[in-house]
């Protein structure tokens, strides 16, 4: 996971703004924690999962990662909780759980 904490806009003063608001370091989206947008998180029931990988293919944020044992897991640093993985799962193995619930 990203170790480096990227400066957010709130850390910058007007003097720190690059000319024309140019972002000179590309590809920094990987450093952004988008997981805190989430209100629901996907939980996979390994009993039902047949390792088809549709969740991994459909995830719009590439947050779903293949595990060594062949199953898939959402990286909660990025997962926004959109629920697409749960929706496309042919085995209904993924359930969206409210973040407040344990």
């Amino acid at each position: 996971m990203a170790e480096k904490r990227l400066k957010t806009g709130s850390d910058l003063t007007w003097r720190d703004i690059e000319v024309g608001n140019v972002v000179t370091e590309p590809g920094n989206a990987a450093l952004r924690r988008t997981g805190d947008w989430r209100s629901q998180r996907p939980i996979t029931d390994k009993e039902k999962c047949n390792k088809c990988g549709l969740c991994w293919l459909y995830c719009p944020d590439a947050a779903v990662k293949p595990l060594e044992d062949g199953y898939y897991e959402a990286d909660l640093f990025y997962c926004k909780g959109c629920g697409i993985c749960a929706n496309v799962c042919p085995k209904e193995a993924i359930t969206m759980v409210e973040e407040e619930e344990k």
Partner: protein
Amino acid sequence: MSKRVGLEASHAAAEAARMADVDVIAAYPITPQTHIPERLAEMVADGELTAAYIPVESEHSALSACLGAAAVGARVFTATAGQGLELMHEVVYVASSMRYPMVMTVCNRALSAPLSVWGDHSDAMAVRDTGWIQVFCQNSQEAFDMTLWAFRVGEDPRVLLPVMVHFDGFHLSHVTEPVILPEQEEVDRFLPRFHYPFALDPDKPMTHGAFGPPEIYSEAKIAQEVAFRKSKDVILQGFQEFGDIFGRYYRLIESYRAEGAKLLLVTMGSFSETATIAIDTKRNKGESVGLISLRLWRPFPFEELHQAAKDAETLIVFDRSISLGGPGGPVYSEVRSALYSEKDRPKVVSFIGGLGGRDMSVKDFEYVIDRGREIAEKGSKELFETVGIRGKVTGIRG
């Protein structure tokens, strides 16, 4: 050796763009600017200028194409007028906020309705707050000189801003006057090749035009504002260097017989030359009058205005556009506001005329001086007064 030729201001601007060796031109023809893109298209077709001439379907596209070209570090030129500048409007802000140097000639034209292709300053006033460096020209020579100067200043790494060069539609754009054209070697010395430090490059990727959420937008605008105001140093340096090479020295505010004058007429653009004749007539009668004309409109030359107005008791500001429902002409508003903090501030009087191509004669300017003096002494019921309007104008109240 430089040479003296007859050129209308439009062709003078096109010639300056050619001698600046622009890389990209994207423009849409509109009266009274048409001669500029026509001439440049000819130059490109005839091989006199090696540049990409992008024919576009509108002014909005013209300036958008200019943005793209500037983003990769090209030297970019465009031109428009009146309604065309209005159609560009949203992109005008983007060019300055993204700090893309480019030069745009505006052949000042009245805005519809009623439909008018003729000149006044309404189009310029509508883009007053867009963050472009803006200068006004009084003749064809200045149309050439300011265009070259605009590239030099806008592309300076301390500035990186677009520059608008205004000259009056028809009164200048279509009038042939003597113009001194320099040698290419002199132009090259004044205007070295442009290296945009943030040019898009696949080998060194970066992001232009990122989203600005509430946590960063305000800081971005203040950074832009401070940089814009700081450009004045380079603007002055540019005029100095221009004079050193070409022999013509320009100022942010030009003056004519203004030294020690009790009453100053304030103008902008080509009508200033007509006004100088009225000043001569008045001076010959022993009246203490002079003329100042704003060359630099944005960033506004506050310091120079204070200096120019320090001995005057009355300033009469002549505007070629109306700020509908406002305090008076837009130039008047700025001048009066700029002088408000002065302890011994002069009286400032607003006159509006020369709208939609209406001519202003020497006699008209003499009337403005006489009536303006009277208003300064006795006041007027109207917030501003007019010149050359048929019928007595009343009802300009707060």
